Protein backbone atom coordinates (compact mmCIF):
# COMPACT_ATOMS: atom_id res chain seq x y z
CA UNK A 1 0.00 0.00 0.00
CA UNK A 2 2.59 2.47 1.04
CA UNK A 3 4.72 1.74 -2.01
CA UNK A 4 1.95 2.53 -4.45
CA UNK A 5 1.10 5.68 -2.52
CA UNK A 6 4.63 7.02 -2.91
CA UNK A 7 4.65 6.14 -6.56
CA UNK A 8 1.40 8.04 -7.13
CA UNK A 9 2.78 11.01 -5.24
CA UNK A 10 5.95 10.94 -7.32
CA UNK A 11 3.88 10.95 -10.47
CA UNK A 12 2.05 14.14 -9.60
CA UNK A 13 5.34 15.70 -8.56
CA UNK A 14 6.95 15.05 -11.92
CA UNK A 15 4.19 16.77 -13.82
CA UNK A 16 5.82 20.21 -14.22
CA UNK A 17 7.56 20.44 -17.56
CA UNK A 18 11.06 21.66 -18.23
CA UNK A 19 9.84 25.21 -18.77
CA UNK A 20 8.23 25.40 -15.34
CA UNK A 21 11.32 23.89 -13.76
CA UNK A 22 13.46 26.43 -15.53
CA UNK A 23 11.27 29.19 -14.15
CA UNK A 24 11.61 27.71 -10.71
CA UNK A 25 15.36 27.91 -10.63
CA UNK A 26 16.36 30.98 -8.72
CA UNK A 27 19.35 32.22 -10.72
CA UNK A 28 17.39 32.02 -13.95
CA UNK A 29 14.41 33.77 -12.39
CA UNK A 30 16.59 36.56 -11.02
CA UNK A 31 18.16 36.99 -14.42
CA UNK A 32 14.80 37.10 -16.21
CA UNK A 33 13.29 39.48 -13.66
CA UNK A 34 16.14 41.92 -13.67
CA UNK A 35 16.62 41.84 -17.43
CA UNK A 36 13.95 44.38 -18.55
CA UNK A 37 14.73 46.99 -15.92
CA UNK A 38 18.50 46.65 -16.03
CA UNK A 39 18.46 46.40 -19.81
CA UNK A 40 16.39 49.55 -20.23
CA UNK A 41 18.40 51.50 -17.71
CA UNK A 42 21.75 50.38 -19.10
CA UNK A 43 20.87 51.18 -22.69
CA UNK A 44 18.98 54.42 -22.12
CA UNK A 45 20.59 55.77 -18.95
CA UNK A 46 24.05 54.46 -18.17
CA UNK A 47 25.26 54.36 -21.74
CA UNK A 48 23.99 57.88 -22.61
CA UNK A 49 25.57 59.19 -19.41
CA UNK A 50 28.92 57.83 -20.56
CA UNK A 51 28.28 58.92 -24.13
CA UNK A 52 27.47 62.43 -22.90
CA UNK A 53 30.75 62.66 -21.05
CA UNK A 54 32.59 61.39 -24.12
CA UNK A 55 30.75 63.84 -26.40
CA UNK A 56 31.87 66.70 -24.19
CA UNK A 57 35.47 65.96 -25.17
CA UNK A 58 34.80 65.79 -28.91
CA UNK A 59 33.74 68.27 -31.58
CA UNK A 60 30.55 66.48 -32.63
CA UNK A 61 27.90 68.47 -34.45
CA UNK A 62 24.47 67.44 -35.65
CA UNK A 63 24.93 65.25 -38.71
CA UNK A 64 28.69 64.93 -38.28
CA UNK A 65 30.56 62.54 -36.03
CA UNK A 66 33.29 64.13 -33.96
CA UNK A 67 36.82 63.38 -33.01
CA UNK A 68 38.56 63.74 -29.67
CA UNK A 69 39.55 67.33 -28.93
CA UNK A 70 40.41 67.05 -25.25
CA UNK A 71 39.42 69.96 -23.07
CA UNK A 72 38.83 72.36 -25.95
CA UNK A 73 35.08 72.67 -25.30
CA UNK A 74 35.63 73.46 -21.67
CA UNK A 75 38.38 75.96 -22.49
CA UNK A 76 36.01 77.66 -24.87
CA UNK A 77 33.23 77.70 -22.28
CA UNK A 78 35.57 79.08 -19.61
CA UNK A 79 35.93 82.23 -21.70
CA UNK A 80 32.26 82.45 -22.57
CA UNK A 81 30.45 85.09 -20.45
CA UNK A 82 27.05 83.60 -21.35
CA UNK A 83 28.12 80.27 -19.86
CA UNK A 84 29.30 81.91 -16.65
CA UNK A 85 26.12 83.91 -16.39
CA UNK A 86 24.12 80.68 -16.76
CA UNK A 87 26.23 79.07 -14.02
CA UNK A 88 25.61 82.04 -11.78
CA UNK A 89 21.89 82.08 -12.48
CA UNK A 90 21.57 78.30 -11.99
CA UNK A 91 23.14 78.57 -8.56
CA UNK A 92 21.19 81.69 -7.65
CA UNK A 93 17.91 80.23 -8.94
CA UNK A 94 18.42 76.99 -7.04
CA UNK A 95 19.43 78.72 -3.81
CA UNK A 96 16.64 81.29 -3.71
CA UNK A 97 13.93 78.96 -5.00
CA UNK A 98 14.91 76.21 -2.56
CA UNK A 99 14.87 78.58 0.39
CA UNK A 100 11.50 79.96 -0.72
CA UNK A 101 9.98 76.56 -1.38
CA UNK A 102 11.07 75.12 1.92
CA UNK A 103 10.12 78.13 4.03
CA UNK A 104 6.65 78.39 2.49
CA UNK A 105 6.23 74.64 2.10
CA UNK A 106 7.05 74.01 5.74
CA UNK A 107 4.64 76.73 6.76
CA UNK A 108 1.89 75.23 4.63
CA UNK A 109 2.63 71.76 6.00
CA UNK A 110 2.37 73.08 9.55
CA UNK A 111 -0.97 74.70 8.71
CA UNK A 112 -2.31 71.53 7.11
CA UNK A 113 -1.14 69.45 10.04
CA UNK A 114 -3.64 71.17 12.35
CA UNK A 115 -7.17 70.03 12.90
CA UNK A 116 -9.13 71.33 9.91
CA UNK A 117 -12.42 70.72 8.18
CA UNK A 118 -12.18 69.29 4.62
CA UNK A 119 -8.61 68.27 5.25
CA UNK A 120 -8.28 65.73 2.44
CA UNK A 121 -9.95 68.06 -0.04
CA UNK A 122 -7.51 70.81 0.91
CA UNK A 123 -4.60 68.44 0.50
CA UNK A 124 -5.85 67.44 -2.94
CA UNK A 125 -6.23 71.08 -4.01
CA UNK A 126 -2.80 72.00 -2.72
CA UNK A 127 -1.14 69.31 -4.80
CA UNK A 128 -2.73 70.55 -8.01
CA UNK A 129 0.12 72.85 -9.17
CA UNK A 130 2.49 69.94 -8.87
CA UNK A 131 0.59 67.45 -10.99
CA UNK A 132 -0.39 69.72 -13.88
CA UNK A 133 2.18 69.75 -16.68
CA UNK A 134 4.83 72.31 -15.79
CA UNK A 135 4.91 73.77 -19.26
CA UNK A 136 1.21 74.44 -19.21
CA UNK A 137 1.26 76.22 -15.86
CA UNK A 138 4.36 78.04 -17.08
CA UNK A 139 2.35 79.32 -20.02
CA UNK A 140 -0.24 80.58 -17.54
CA UNK A 141 2.55 82.41 -15.74
CA UNK A 142 3.78 83.80 -19.02
CA UNK A 143 0.35 85.31 -19.52
CA UNK A 144 0.29 86.58 -15.93
CA UNK A 145 3.68 88.22 -16.62
CA UNK A 146 2.50 89.84 -19.86
CA UNK A 147 3.82 93.43 -20.07
CA UNK A 148 0.49 94.94 -21.16
CA UNK A 149 -2.20 92.68 -19.80
CA UNK A 150 -0.62 91.35 -16.65
CA UNK A 151 -3.28 90.78 -14.06
CA UNK A 152 -0.76 91.42 -11.27
CA UNK A 153 0.02 94.83 -12.72
CA UNK A 154 -3.68 95.48 -13.05
CA UNK A 155 -4.28 94.71 -9.38
CA UNK A 156 -1.29 96.71 -8.16
CA UNK A 157 -1.68 99.73 -10.44
CA UNK A 158 -5.38 100.05 -11.26
CA UNK A 159 -7.07 98.46 -8.28
CA UNK A 160 -4.74 99.24 -5.39
CA UNK A 161 -3.01 102.26 -6.91
CA UNK A 162 0.36 101.36 -5.41
CA UNK A 163 2.36 102.08 -8.56
CA UNK A 164 2.00 104.33 -11.54
CA UNK A 165 3.46 102.10 -14.24
CA UNK A 166 2.87 98.49 -15.13
CA UNK A 167 5.51 95.98 -14.13
CA UNK A 168 7.89 94.94 -16.86
CA UNK A 169 8.22 91.38 -15.61
CA UNK A 170 10.17 89.76 -18.40
CA UNK A 171 11.64 92.72 -20.22
CA UNK A 172 14.89 93.16 -18.34
CA UNK A 173 17.35 90.87 -16.63
CA UNK A 174 16.65 91.05 -12.90
CA UNK A 175 12.86 91.29 -12.96
CA UNK A 176 12.80 88.33 -15.34
CA UNK A 177 15.06 86.34 -13.03
CA UNK A 178 12.88 87.02 -10.02
CA UNK A 179 9.71 86.28 -11.95
CA UNK A 180 11.03 82.85 -12.92
CA UNK A 181 12.03 82.13 -9.35
CA UNK A 182 8.53 83.08 -8.18
CA UNK A 183 6.98 80.70 -10.71
CA UNK A 184 9.35 77.94 -9.61
CA UNK A 185 8.49 78.46 -5.95
CA UNK A 186 4.79 78.39 -6.80
CA UNK A 187 5.25 75.07 -8.51
CA UNK A 188 7.51 73.59 -5.82
CA UNK A 189 5.53 74.45 -2.69
CA UNK A 190 2.98 71.59 -2.97
CA UNK A 191 5.56 68.82 -3.26
CA UNK A 192 7.53 70.11 -0.28
CA UNK A 193 4.39 70.73 1.76
CA UNK A 194 2.85 67.31 1.17
CA UNK A 195 6.10 65.45 1.85
CA UNK A 196 6.80 67.42 5.01
CA UNK A 197 3.18 66.94 6.08
CA UNK A 198 3.76 63.20 5.91
CA UNK A 199 6.83 63.70 8.07
CA UNK A 200 4.92 65.86 10.54
CA UNK A 201 2.21 63.24 10.92
CA UNK A 202 4.76 60.73 12.15
CA UNK A 203 5.72 62.96 15.09
CA UNK A 204 3.86 61.78 18.16
CA UNK A 205 1.53 64.45 19.63
CA UNK A 206 2.55 63.34 23.12
CA UNK A 207 5.89 65.07 22.59
CA UNK A 208 4.11 68.37 22.05
CA UNK A 209 1.88 67.79 25.05
CA UNK A 210 4.90 67.08 27.19
CA UNK A 211 6.62 70.21 25.92
CA UNK A 212 3.48 72.24 26.56
CA UNK A 213 3.34 71.02 30.14
CA UNK A 214 6.98 71.92 30.51
CA UNK A 215 6.12 75.47 29.50
CA UNK A 216 7.81 75.47 26.09
CA UNK A 217 6.82 78.36 23.86
CA UNK A 218 5.47 77.57 20.37
CA UNK A 219 8.80 78.61 18.92
CA UNK A 220 10.67 76.26 21.24
CA UNK A 221 8.30 73.45 20.36
CA UNK A 222 8.99 74.13 16.70
CA UNK A 223 12.78 74.33 16.90
CA UNK A 224 13.32 71.59 19.45
CA UNK A 225 10.74 68.97 18.50
CA UNK A 226 9.48 69.59 14.98
CA UNK A 227 12.71 70.49 13.22
CA UNK A 228 14.96 67.74 14.62
CA UNK A 229 12.37 65.04 14.05
CA UNK A 230 11.64 66.30 10.56
CA UNK A 231 15.31 66.43 9.61
CA UNK A 232 15.66 63.00 7.96
CA UNK A 233 12.72 63.52 5.61
CA UNK A 234 13.70 67.15 5.08
CA UNK A 235 17.14 66.01 3.92
CA UNK A 236 15.71 63.65 1.31
CA UNK A 237 13.11 66.09 0.03
CA UNK A 238 15.74 68.81 -0.16
CA UNK A 239 18.15 66.62 -2.10
CA UNK A 240 15.43 65.91 -4.64
CA UNK A 241 14.32 69.49 -4.79
CA UNK A 242 17.84 70.86 -5.28
CA UNK A 243 18.67 68.38 -8.02
CA UNK A 244 15.49 69.05 -9.94
CA UNK A 245 15.60 72.81 -9.46
CA UNK A 246 19.19 73.04 -10.57
CA UNK A 247 18.52 71.04 -13.71
CA UNK A 248 15.19 72.76 -14.36
CA UNK A 249 14.44 73.35 -17.99
CA UNK A 250 10.72 73.60 -18.65
CA UNK A 251 9.84 76.76 -16.73
CA UNK A 252 12.64 78.84 -18.16
CA UNK A 253 12.25 77.50 -21.66
CA UNK A 254 8.51 78.11 -21.65
CA UNK A 255 8.53 81.60 -20.12
CA UNK A 256 11.65 83.37 -21.36
CA UNK A 257 13.67 80.89 -23.48
CA UNK A 258 16.73 82.27 -21.74
CA UNK A 259 16.07 85.87 -22.70
CA UNK A 260 16.21 88.85 -22.33
CA UNK A 261 19.75 88.86 -23.76
CA UNK A 262 20.62 85.42 -22.33
CA UNK A 263 20.20 86.70 -18.78
CA UNK A 264 17.89 83.93 -17.60
CA UNK A 265 19.63 80.95 -19.15
CA UNK A 266 20.00 78.04 -16.78
CA UNK A 267 22.72 75.55 -17.63
CA UNK A 268 20.10 73.12 -18.93
CA UNK A 269 18.46 75.64 -21.26
CA UNK A 270 21.83 76.84 -22.50
CA UNK A 271 22.87 73.25 -23.19
CA UNK A 272 19.68 72.73 -25.17
CA UNK A 273 20.06 76.03 -27.02
CA UNK A 274 23.61 75.26 -28.10
CA UNK A 275 23.12 71.54 -28.57
CA UNK A 276 19.87 70.97 -30.43
CA UNK A 277 18.77 74.10 -32.35
CA UNK A 278 22.37 75.35 -32.49
CA UNK A 279 23.67 72.00 -33.67
CA UNK A 280 26.80 72.12 -31.50
CA UNK A 281 26.14 68.80 -29.78
CA UNK A 282 29.58 68.63 -28.20
CA UNK A 283 29.31 72.07 -26.67
CA UNK A 284 25.83 71.31 -25.33
CA UNK A 285 27.13 68.07 -23.86
CA UNK A 286 30.02 69.94 -22.25
CA UNK A 287 27.56 72.34 -20.58
CA UNK A 288 25.41 69.43 -19.42
CA UNK A 289 28.45 67.61 -18.08
CA UNK A 290 29.51 70.72 -16.14
CA UNK A 291 26.28 70.37 -14.16
CA UNK A 292 27.40 67.03 -12.72
CA UNK A 293 29.93 68.38 -10.16
CA UNK A 294 27.34 70.84 -8.83
CA UNK A 295 24.78 68.05 -8.48
CA UNK A 296 27.18 65.71 -6.72
CA UNK A 297 28.24 68.48 -4.38
CA UNK A 298 24.64 69.49 -3.60
CA UNK A 299 23.60 65.88 -2.98
CA UNK A 300 26.52 65.16 -0.67
CA UNK A 301 26.06 68.47 1.12
CA UNK A 302 22.37 68.02 1.87
CA UNK A 303 22.75 64.34 2.59
CA UNK A 304 25.66 64.55 4.98
CA UNK A 305 24.77 67.95 6.36
CA UNK A 306 21.24 67.01 7.30
CA UNK A 307 20.77 63.28 7.25
CA UNK A 308 23.57 62.86 9.80
CA UNK A 309 21.02 63.72 12.47
CA UNK A 310 19.24 60.47 11.85
CA UNK A 311 22.27 58.40 12.74
CA UNK A 312 22.96 60.52 15.78
CA UNK A 313 19.51 59.77 17.09
CA UNK A 314 20.37 56.10 16.81
CA UNK A 315 17.42 55.13 14.64
CA UNK A 316 17.89 52.14 12.40
CA UNK A 317 17.62 52.55 8.68
CA UNK A 318 14.24 51.29 7.73
Amino acid sequence: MSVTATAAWKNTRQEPGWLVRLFDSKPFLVFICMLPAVGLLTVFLTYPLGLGIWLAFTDTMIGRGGSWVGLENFEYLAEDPVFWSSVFYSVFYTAVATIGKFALGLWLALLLNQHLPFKSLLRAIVLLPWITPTVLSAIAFWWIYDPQFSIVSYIVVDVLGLRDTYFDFLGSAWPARWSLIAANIWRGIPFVAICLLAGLQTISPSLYEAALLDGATPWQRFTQITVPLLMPILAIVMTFSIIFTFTDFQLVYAITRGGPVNSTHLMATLAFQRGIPGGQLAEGAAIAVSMIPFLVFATLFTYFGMARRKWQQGEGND
Partner: protein
Amino acid sequence: MTEALAPEARTVKNTITADGPEARASLAPELMTWDSKARRVVTLYVPLACFVLILLFPFYWMAVTSFKPNAELYDYKTYNPFWISSPTLDHIYKLLFETAYPRWLWTTMLVAIASTFLSLFASVLAAYAIQRLRFRGSQYVGLAIYLAYLVPPSILFIPLATMVFQLGLFDTPFALILTYPTFLVPFCTWLLIGYFKSIPYELEECALIDGATRLQILTQITLPLAVPGLISAGIFSFTLSWNEFIYALAFIQSSESKTVPVAILTELVSGDVYQWGALMAGSLLGSLPVAIFYSFFVDYYVSSLTGAVKE
Protein backbone atom coordinates in the same frame (compact mmCIF):
# COMPACT_ATOMS: atom_id res chain seq x y z
CA MET B 1 19.51 64.13 24.20
CA THR B 2 20.86 67.34 25.69
CA GLU B 3 17.98 69.18 24.04
CA ALA B 4 15.49 66.89 25.70
CA LEU B 5 17.07 67.43 29.10
CA ALA B 6 16.75 71.18 29.05
CA PRO B 7 12.93 71.40 29.24
CA GLU B 8 12.94 68.78 31.98
CA ALA B 9 15.16 70.97 34.09
CA ARG B 10 12.78 73.82 33.48
CA THR B 11 9.82 71.71 34.61
CA VAL B 12 11.44 71.12 37.91
CA LYS B 13 11.98 74.83 38.29
CA ASN B 14 8.38 75.51 37.26
CA THR B 15 6.90 73.10 39.76
CA ILE B 16 8.98 74.66 42.50
CA THR B 17 7.81 78.19 41.73
CA ALA B 18 4.37 77.16 40.55
CA ASP B 19 2.62 79.06 43.29
CA GLY B 20 4.43 82.30 42.47
CA PRO B 21 2.39 84.92 40.55
CA GLU B 22 4.95 85.03 37.80
CA ALA B 23 4.43 81.40 36.80
CA ARG B 24 0.67 81.76 36.76
CA ALA B 25 0.90 84.84 34.55
CA SER B 26 3.05 83.04 32.00
CA LEU B 27 0.74 80.03 31.94
CA ALA B 28 -2.52 81.92 31.78
CA PRO B 29 -2.26 83.42 28.27
CA GLU B 30 -1.08 80.09 26.91
CA LEU B 31 -4.14 78.36 28.28
CA MET B 32 -6.46 81.12 27.15
CA THR B 33 -5.08 81.25 23.66
CA TRP B 34 -5.05 77.50 23.28
CA ASP B 35 -8.61 77.49 22.07
CA SER B 36 -9.08 81.11 21.12
CA LYS B 37 -11.13 81.43 17.98
CA ALA B 38 -9.73 84.77 16.87
CA ARG B 39 -6.17 83.64 17.17
CA ARG B 40 -6.93 80.50 15.21
CA VAL B 41 -8.42 82.57 12.42
CA VAL B 42 -5.37 84.82 12.21
CA THR B 43 -2.69 82.15 12.49
CA LEU B 44 -4.40 79.35 10.62
CA TYR B 45 -7.28 80.26 8.34
CA VAL B 46 -5.97 83.54 6.92
CA PRO B 47 -2.56 82.17 5.86
CA LEU B 48 -4.19 78.98 4.61
CA ALA B 49 -6.66 80.96 2.54
CA CYS B 50 -3.78 83.00 1.07
CA PHE B 51 -1.91 79.82 0.16
CA VAL B 52 -4.91 78.23 -1.51
CA LEU B 53 -5.73 81.47 -3.32
CA ILE B 54 -2.22 81.86 -4.70
CA LEU B 55 -1.83 78.18 -5.57
CA LEU B 56 -5.13 78.10 -7.43
CA PHE B 57 -5.10 81.55 -9.01
CA PRO B 58 -3.13 80.58 -12.16
CA PHE B 59 -5.67 77.83 -12.85
CA TYR B 60 -8.57 80.19 -12.36
CA TRP B 61 -6.90 82.69 -14.62
CA MET B 62 -6.25 80.01 -17.22
CA ALA B 63 -9.92 78.99 -17.16
CA VAL B 64 -11.24 82.55 -17.26
CA THR B 65 -8.96 83.48 -20.15
CA SER B 66 -9.89 80.48 -22.24
CA PHE B 67 -13.62 81.31 -22.14
CA LYS B 68 -13.32 85.06 -22.73
CA PRO B 69 -13.94 86.61 -26.13
CA ASN B 70 -10.95 88.53 -27.48
CA ALA B 71 -12.62 91.90 -26.96
CA GLU B 72 -12.88 91.27 -23.24
CA LEU B 73 -9.48 89.68 -23.05
CA TYR B 74 -7.58 92.83 -23.89
CA ASP B 75 -9.82 95.41 -22.27
CA TYR B 76 -9.58 95.66 -18.51
CA LYS B 77 -11.10 99.14 -18.37
CA THR B 78 -14.63 98.33 -19.51
CA TYR B 79 -14.83 94.70 -18.37
CA ASN B 80 -13.96 93.29 -15.02
CA PRO B 81 -10.98 91.03 -15.79
CA PHE B 82 -11.87 88.57 -13.05
CA TRP B 83 -15.18 87.66 -14.56
CA ILE B 84 -16.51 86.73 -17.99
CA SER B 85 -19.38 88.88 -19.24
CA SER B 86 -20.16 86.85 -22.34
CA PRO B 87 -18.48 83.44 -22.22
CA THR B 88 -17.51 81.93 -25.55
CA LEU B 89 -16.26 78.59 -26.77
CA ASP B 90 -14.42 80.22 -29.69
CA HIS B 91 -10.95 79.45 -28.41
CA ILE B 92 -11.76 75.84 -27.67
CA TYR B 93 -13.50 75.44 -31.01
CA LYS B 94 -10.52 76.93 -32.80
CA LEU B 95 -8.19 74.66 -30.89
CA LEU B 96 -10.10 71.47 -31.54
CA PHE B 97 -11.04 72.04 -35.16
CA GLU B 98 -8.43 74.37 -36.63
CA THR B 99 -5.29 72.89 -35.13
CA ALA B 100 -4.00 69.34 -34.72
CA TYR B 101 -4.85 69.45 -31.03
CA PRO B 102 -6.87 66.18 -30.92
CA ARG B 103 -3.98 64.50 -32.68
CA TRP B 104 -1.51 65.83 -30.08
CA LEU B 105 -3.74 64.68 -27.24
CA TRP B 106 -3.94 61.26 -28.82
CA THR B 107 -0.15 61.00 -29.25
CA THR B 108 0.43 62.12 -25.68
CA MET B 109 -2.06 59.58 -24.40
CA LEU B 110 -0.51 56.80 -26.46
CA VAL B 111 3.02 57.62 -25.34
CA ALA B 112 2.01 57.99 -21.71
CA ILE B 113 0.10 54.71 -21.60
CA ALA B 114 2.72 52.71 -23.50
CA SER B 115 5.63 53.96 -21.43
CA THR B 116 3.64 53.44 -18.23
CA PHE B 117 2.98 49.80 -19.09
CA LEU B 118 6.54 49.22 -20.19
CA SER B 119 7.94 50.67 -16.99
CA LEU B 120 5.41 48.92 -14.77
CA PHE B 121 6.29 45.60 -16.36
CA ALA B 122 10.02 46.16 -15.90
CA SER B 123 9.71 47.53 -12.38
CA VAL B 124 7.35 44.87 -11.03
CA LEU B 125 9.78 42.16 -12.05
CA ALA B 126 12.80 44.07 -10.79
CA ALA B 127 11.17 44.99 -7.49
CA TYR B 128 10.05 41.40 -6.97
CA ALA B 129 13.52 40.09 -7.67
CA ILE B 130 15.19 42.63 -5.39
CA GLN B 131 12.75 42.34 -2.53
CA ARG B 132 11.64 38.71 -2.65
CA LEU B 133 14.23 36.60 -4.44
CA ARG B 134 16.98 38.23 -2.36
CA PHE B 135 19.94 37.30 -4.50
CA ARG B 136 23.48 38.19 -3.57
CA GLY B 137 24.03 41.92 -3.98
CA SER B 138 20.34 42.73 -4.34
CA GLN B 139 20.63 45.73 -2.00
CA TYR B 140 23.31 47.22 -4.20
CA VAL B 141 21.16 46.80 -7.28
CA GLY B 142 18.34 48.50 -5.38
CA LEU B 143 20.61 51.37 -4.43
CA ALA B 144 21.86 51.69 -8.01
CA ILE B 145 18.30 51.91 -9.28
CA TYR B 146 17.54 54.57 -6.70
CA LEU B 147 20.61 56.56 -7.76
CA ALA B 148 19.43 56.27 -11.36
CA TYR B 149 16.42 58.35 -10.38
CA LEU B 150 18.74 61.17 -9.36
CA VAL B 151 20.17 61.46 -12.87
CA PRO B 152 18.18 64.32 -14.37
CA PRO B 153 16.91 64.26 -17.98
CA SER B 154 18.64 67.60 -18.62
CA ILE B 155 22.00 65.81 -18.58
CA LEU B 156 20.87 62.90 -20.71
CA PHE B 157 18.95 64.49 -23.55
CA ILE B 158 21.91 65.39 -25.78
CA PRO B 159 23.53 61.93 -25.85
CA LEU B 160 20.06 60.36 -26.03
CA ALA B 161 19.27 62.56 -29.02
CA THR B 162 22.29 61.20 -30.88
CA MET B 163 21.34 57.64 -29.90
CA VAL B 164 17.74 58.08 -30.95
CA PHE B 165 18.95 59.42 -34.28
CA GLN B 166 21.31 56.50 -34.84
CA LEU B 167 18.63 53.96 -33.94
CA GLY B 168 16.34 55.53 -36.52
CA LEU B 169 13.74 56.40 -33.88
CA PHE B 170 13.96 60.16 -34.34
CA ASP B 171 10.54 61.75 -34.78
CA THR B 172 8.63 58.58 -33.88
CA PRO B 173 6.62 57.93 -30.70
CA PHE B 174 8.99 55.03 -29.96
CA ALA B 175 11.74 57.52 -29.18
CA LEU B 176 9.63 58.73 -26.25
CA ILE B 177 8.17 55.37 -25.25
CA LEU B 178 11.65 53.91 -24.88
CA THR B 179 13.30 56.88 -23.18
CA TYR B 180 10.61 57.77 -20.63
CA PRO B 181 11.27 54.57 -18.65
CA THR B 182 14.68 56.02 -17.73
CA PHE B 183 13.00 58.13 -15.10
CA LEU B 184 9.89 55.97 -14.61
CA VAL B 185 11.54 52.62 -13.90
CA PRO B 186 13.73 53.81 -11.00
CA PHE B 187 10.81 55.55 -9.36
CA CYS B 188 8.33 52.69 -9.80
CA THR B 189 10.83 50.07 -8.72
CA TRP B 190 11.58 52.01 -5.58
CA LEU B 191 7.88 52.45 -4.86
CA LEU B 192 7.10 48.77 -5.46
CA ILE B 193 10.02 47.52 -3.38
CA GLY B 194 8.46 49.41 -0.49
CA TYR B 195 5.10 47.93 -1.30
CA PHE B 196 6.31 44.34 -1.60
CA LYS B 197 8.06 44.77 1.73
CA SER B 198 4.68 45.33 3.38
CA ILE B 199 3.23 42.03 2.08
CA PRO B 200 3.81 39.28 4.62
CA TYR B 201 6.46 36.83 3.53
CA GLU B 202 4.57 33.98 5.21
CA LEU B 203 1.89 34.03 2.52
CA GLU B 204 4.47 33.14 -0.09
CA GLU B 205 5.99 30.46 2.11
CA CYS B 206 2.56 28.85 2.49
CA ALA B 207 2.12 28.83 -1.26
CA LEU B 208 5.59 27.38 -1.70
CA ILE B 209 4.74 24.56 0.69
CA ASP B 210 1.51 23.93 -1.21
CA GLY B 211 3.63 23.30 -4.28
CA ALA B 212 3.20 26.55 -6.18
CA THR B 213 6.01 27.53 -8.49
CA ARG B 214 7.66 30.91 -8.08
CA LEU B 215 5.86 32.21 -11.12
CA GLN B 216 2.52 31.13 -9.68
CA ILE B 217 3.41 32.83 -6.43
CA LEU B 218 4.17 36.04 -8.24
CA THR B 219 1.05 36.06 -10.40
CA GLN B 220 -1.45 34.61 -7.92
CA ILE B 221 -0.29 35.77 -4.49
CA THR B 222 2.03 38.73 -4.64
CA LEU B 223 0.65 40.71 -7.55
CA PRO B 224 -3.01 40.66 -6.47
CA LEU B 225 -1.93 41.85 -3.05
CA ALA B 226 0.23 44.56 -4.57
CA VAL B 227 -2.56 46.05 -6.68
CA PRO B 228 -2.76 49.33 -4.68
CA GLY B 229 1.00 49.72 -5.12
CA LEU B 230 0.67 49.02 -8.83
CA ILE B 231 -2.08 51.61 -9.13
CA SER B 232 0.05 54.24 -7.37
CA ALA B 233 3.02 53.46 -9.57
CA GLY B 234 0.78 53.52 -12.64
CA ILE B 235 -0.75 56.93 -11.90
CA PHE B 236 2.62 58.33 -11.09
CA SER B 237 4.14 57.08 -14.31
CA PHE B 238 1.19 58.31 -16.31
CA THR B 239 1.35 61.85 -14.93
CA LEU B 240 5.14 61.98 -15.19
CA SER B 241 5.09 60.92 -18.81
CA TRP B 242 2.19 63.23 -19.61
CA ASN B 243 4.17 66.13 -18.15
CA GLU B 244 7.51 65.25 -19.70
CA PHE B 245 8.87 68.01 -21.86
CA ILE B 246 12.56 68.03 -22.66
CA TYR B 247 12.78 64.64 -24.40
CA ALA B 248 9.63 65.34 -26.37
CA LEU B 249 11.04 68.70 -27.41
CA ALA B 250 14.38 67.28 -28.47
CA PHE B 251 13.34 64.03 -30.16
CA ILE B 252 10.18 65.02 -32.03
CA GLN B 253 10.22 67.37 -34.96
CA SER B 254 7.14 66.93 -37.11
CA SER B 255 4.12 68.89 -35.98
CA GLU B 256 1.63 66.03 -35.91
CA SER B 257 3.59 63.68 -33.66
CA LYS B 258 4.33 66.22 -30.94
CA THR B 259 3.01 65.82 -27.42
CA VAL B 260 0.62 68.37 -25.94
CA PRO B 261 3.06 70.37 -23.78
CA VAL B 262 5.56 70.71 -26.63
CA ALA B 263 2.95 71.36 -29.29
CA ILE B 264 1.28 74.18 -27.36
CA LEU B 265 4.58 75.93 -26.85
CA THR B 266 5.97 75.44 -30.33
CA GLU B 267 2.92 75.28 -32.59
CA LEU B 268 0.45 77.68 -30.99
CA VAL B 269 3.01 80.37 -30.26
CA SER B 270 3.47 81.82 -33.70
CA GLY B 271 4.74 85.25 -34.60
CA ASP B 272 4.64 88.21 -32.28
CA VAL B 273 0.95 88.21 -31.50
CA TYR B 274 0.20 85.50 -29.01
CA GLN B 275 -3.24 83.96 -29.15
CA TRP B 276 -3.64 84.00 -25.40
CA GLY B 277 -7.18 82.65 -25.50
CA ALA B 278 -6.18 79.61 -27.54
CA LEU B 279 -2.98 79.15 -25.55
CA MET B 280 -4.86 79.13 -22.26
CA ALA B 281 -7.56 76.86 -23.65
CA GLY B 282 -4.86 74.47 -24.81
CA SER B 283 -3.18 74.53 -21.42
CA LEU B 284 -6.48 73.97 -19.67
CA LEU B 285 -7.42 71.03 -21.89
CA GLY B 286 -3.92 69.61 -21.59
CA SER B 287 -4.05 69.77 -17.81
CA LEU B 288 -7.54 68.33 -17.51
CA PRO B 289 -6.81 64.65 -18.25
CA VAL B 290 -4.12 64.52 -15.58
CA ALA B 291 -6.25 66.49 -13.15
CA ILE B 292 -9.24 64.18 -13.64
CA PHE B 293 -7.08 61.12 -13.44
CA TYR B 294 -5.50 62.50 -10.32
CA SER B 295 -8.78 63.38 -8.64
CA PHE B 296 -9.93 59.75 -8.84
CA PHE B 297 -6.79 58.46 -7.19
CA VAL B 298 -5.79 61.28 -4.88
CA ASP B 299 -5.22 59.04 -1.91
CA TYR B 300 -3.08 56.57 -3.79
CA TYR B 301 -1.15 59.46 -5.21
CA VAL B 302 -0.46 61.15 -1.90
CA SER B 303 0.42 57.91 -0.17
CA SER B 304 2.81 56.87 -2.91
CA LEU B 305 4.44 60.29 -3.03
CA THR B 306 4.98 60.42 0.71
CA GLY B 307 5.72 56.70 0.96
CA ALA B 308 8.45 56.92 -1.63
CA VAL B 309 10.07 59.83 0.17
CA LYS B 310 9.89 58.12 3.53
CA GLU B 311 11.59 54.97 2.30
